[in-house]
C-alpha cells in the first residue's frame, strides 16, 4: 500500500469543493485561486487547476468573463452559477457529514469488544 496514493486520493476528493468554496466568496482568477489554496496550506498545481475549472465550466457550474489587463493577455475571471451554488451546498453537506464521521471514528479511544468473551451464537 502506497501512502502517497491514499493521500492523493484524499486530496482529489476535496479539491472541487475547495475551489468552489473560494469562488463562492467572489469572482476569482485562477492564479488567485492558487494563492488562496497555498495560503490555506493546500498546494495545487496550476496544471491541475485549469482542467478542473474548465470541466466545472463545461458542466455549467462556473461562468467566466474576460477582463482586459495591461500587463499581459486578457484574464478569465470565474464566478459561480446558480447550479454551481446548489452543487456547492450539496457538497458542503456531504463534507460536513464526512468530517463528523471521520472525526468521531478517528478520536474514539475505547477499545473494541473482546471477541473471545462472547458466547458463540448458533
Amino acid at each position: 500500500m502506497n501512502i502517497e496514493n491514499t493521500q492523493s486520493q484524499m486530496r482529489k476528493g476535496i479539491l472541487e469543493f475547495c475551489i468552489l468554496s473560494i469562488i463562492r466568496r467572489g469572482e476569482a482568477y485562477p492564479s488567485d485561486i492558487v494563492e488562496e489554496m497555498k495560503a490555506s496550506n493546500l498546494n495545487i498545481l496550476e496544471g491541475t487547476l485549469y482542467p478542473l475549472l474548465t470541466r466545472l465550466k463545461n458542466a455549467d457550474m462556473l461562468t467566466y468573463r474576460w477582463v482586459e489587463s495591461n500587463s499581459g493577455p486578457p484574464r478569465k475571471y470565474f464566478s459561480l452559477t446558480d447550479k454551481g451554488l446548489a452543487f456547492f451546498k450539496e457538497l458542503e453537506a456531504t463534507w460536513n457529514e464526512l468530517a463528523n464521521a471521520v472525526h468521531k471514528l478517528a478520536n474514539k479511544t475505547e477499545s473494541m469488544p473482546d471477541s473471545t468473551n462472547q458466547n458463540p451464537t448458533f
Partner: protein
Amino acid sequence: MKKVININFHSRVIPIEESAYEILKQYSDSLRKYFANEEGRDEIINDIESRIAELFSEHLKKGANCITDADVTSIINSMGRPEDFEAADADNTMNTSSSAKQQSSTSNQQQYQNTYSYASSGRGKLYRNADDKILGGVCSGLANYLGIDPVIMRIIFVLLFGALLWVYILLWIIVPSQSLQSNVTKRLFRSADDKIIGGVAGGLAAYFNIQIWIPRLIFALPFVLGFGSRIFHFGFWDWDGFSPRFISGGLGGTLFLTYIILWIAVPIATTASEKLEMRGEKVDLNSIANTIKEDLEGFKGRMDKVGTDLKEGAQRFSTEFKTTADEKRKAFSAEMSGRRNYNSGFGHVIGVLFKAFFLFIAGIVAIALFGALIGLLFGGLAVFPLKNFLLAGSTEDLLAWCSLILFLGVPLVALMTWLIRRIVGARSNNHYLGYVFASLWVIGLVCTIVLFSMFARSFRTRDFVEEDVTIAQPVKGKLLIDVMNGRKSHHYYSREWYGINWDNDWPLYGDNYDTLLLNTVRVNLVKSKDSSFHVHRLKFSRGRTQAEAQFLAKKINFDVEQQDSILLLPNGFGISQHEKFRNQQLLLVIEVPIGKKIEIAGSITNYNWFTINFNHRNGFNIRDYDESDDWGDAYRWHSNTEYVMTKDGLERTNKNYKDDEDNNNEDDDNNKITTPAPKNNGGYRYKSNTDSSKEKNKKDSIKQKKSTKEKTKEATTTIDKPVAKVDNNEQVSSPVYLLATLFQ
C-alpha cells in the same frame, strides 16, 4: 552565447532563448498529449499557455532581456508537469468514482511516457525505405516492417542470391517507397574499437552479447586449420575460381567469404549513439555519457601507449557531450533514428555496381519484352488482311480485335507507362492503374484463348470430294504434267498483296482483294487398272462440321487443261473471303497404265502442300507433305524425269540415275520403290464417301499402315530390302499387318 529568437506567444512578442523555446515547445506538446482525450482540451491548454505568457511578460517587465532556460523551467515547475497532475478526469458528468480517476490518470500518464519512447512508424504497411537504401531500399523496408536490422536482411538476400533475386526485383517494382524512420533498437554494426581486421567479430559479439573471442574463434579456426592443411595439399597456385583453393575450400572458405561480406555490408559504429545501438542499449543522455566514458577509458588506455594526451580525450568528450545533449533536446525520436549515412566507400561502390547491373538486366528484359510485343502487334496487323479469310462470323472478329488490343496492346501500354513513370519519378500511392492493366490483360488473355479454340474448331473435321477429270489419251503414250504460267488462266498471282511482299515460300498468294490463292496441290501417280490414263481430282477441306468441310471442298476450283500430251495444271486455286481458309488441299491422282510413260515437270515443285492438324493430344501443328498424305498406292517420283509404268511400278526410262537433278522435296530414296498390291478390291481405296465414318476408319488404318511401312522402310535404308519386300509379299505384309493391328 546562446541564440535568442522572438516568438509570438498569445499575441505577445517574447524574446526567448532558442533552447528555452525548445523546452517550452516540449512542454506544450506533452500537455497536448496528456489532454488528448479531454473535452475542452484546447481551452485548457490555451489557459495554461496564456498564464505562461503572462508570467513571461511580468518577467520581462521586471527587467530581463529575454526568457532563459531557467525561467522556462521554473515556470513549468510551478505549473506542474503532466505526470504530476491530479484529478485528471475523463468523465465529465462529475459522477466520478475514484477508480475511474485512477484509471484515466494512469492511462494518460502512459500516453505521456510513450511520447518519450522510440517512435515506431509505419509498422503496419510494407514500404521501401527511401532514406536507407543501397539499391532500392527493399531490404531496409522489409527489415523495418519486420522489426529487424536491415543489414541482416541484406545478408540474407545476398546469401540466397539466386532464389531471392527475383523476389528483390519484384519487390523493388511493386512496393512503394517512403521515408521510414528506423524502428530497431539493436542494430548490427562493426565495432570501431574492437577491431583487428575489420571489427566484424567485435560487432557480432556486441550484437549477440557474447564474448569477443567467440566470433573470432569461429572465423579464424577453420580458416587457420584449413589453411594449414590445404597449403600442404594444394599449394599456393591451385586456384578455384576466384581465389586460391586453400582459402576458398571448405568451411574456412565459407566463413572467409562471410567475413568479407559482413565487412562490406555492415556499417561501422562510429558515433556514441551508434555504439549504443550496436549493443542494444537505450540511447539517452546517461548511457551516451557512459559510453563515451568507456570509450574514453579504452581510448586513453591505448593512447597511453602511444603517448598522446588527455586534451584530445577531453575535447572529444565535451564536444560529443554537447552535441548529444543538443540532440536530446530536440525532438527525441526524430533525431535518434534519423538518417544513417553509409559512408563506407567500399560498400558504396559495390552497391553502385550491383545497382547498375540490376538495372542493366532489367533494362534488357524490358527491351526484349517491348520488342516482342511490338513485333507481335505489327505481325498481327500485317496478317490483318488475312483475317477475313481465317475468321468466320462476327464473334470471332470481335474476339480477334479484343485479343489483339488487350492481350498485346495492354502490356505494351503498361510497360511504356511504367517506364515513363520511372523516368519521370512520379510516384503513386495506389496501384489501381496496375490492377486495371492487369485485369484488362487477363480479359485479353481469355479472349485470345476463346478465339483460338473457336478458330481451331473450324478446322476440326476434314472431308474431301472426288471428281473425275476427263482427259484425252495422249497419242504418243506419254503424258507430261506441267503447270500453267503466265496470264493464261484467270488465276494469277501478284507478288504484292495488301502491301505485303510474298515470296515463293509462302503457300499463299493474293489474287485480288477478295480472293486468296492457295497452291496446296499435290500430284500422285498410281498404276492404272486398265490401259488408259485417268485423272482424278481429290479436293480436301477442313471445316467445323463434316457438311461444311465437304461444302468447302466442293468449292475448290482446279480446272486442268490439256494440250495433247501435256496436262496443264493451274498454279493454284482460289478461295474467297466467303469460303474462308480452311486448309483446302487438292490432290491430283494420275493413273498411268502399264507401258505408258509419264513425266512431271519441275514447275510442279512450286506447289506447297501442307496440312494443318489439330487434335486434342498433340495440339496444333502444320505438317509439310509426307507420305501419309499419299493416297492409295502412290509412287514416288522425281521431277523432270521420265518414267515408265511397269507392272512393278514406276521405272525411270533413263537408267543412269546417279546424277539426278533432284529439285523437289521428295526423299532422296531409290527409284524402284514399290508398294504391295492393294489388299482390298483392286481399285483405289478412296472412293466418294457414302459412309464417311467407315471411310474414315479405313483411311485411318491405311494411314497407320503407311506409317508403319514407312517406319520399316526407314529402318532399312539399304537398297536391297525393298526388293526382298517385293519377293515376299505375304511375309512382309503380315508383320506390317501385325504392327498395324497393334497400333489400332
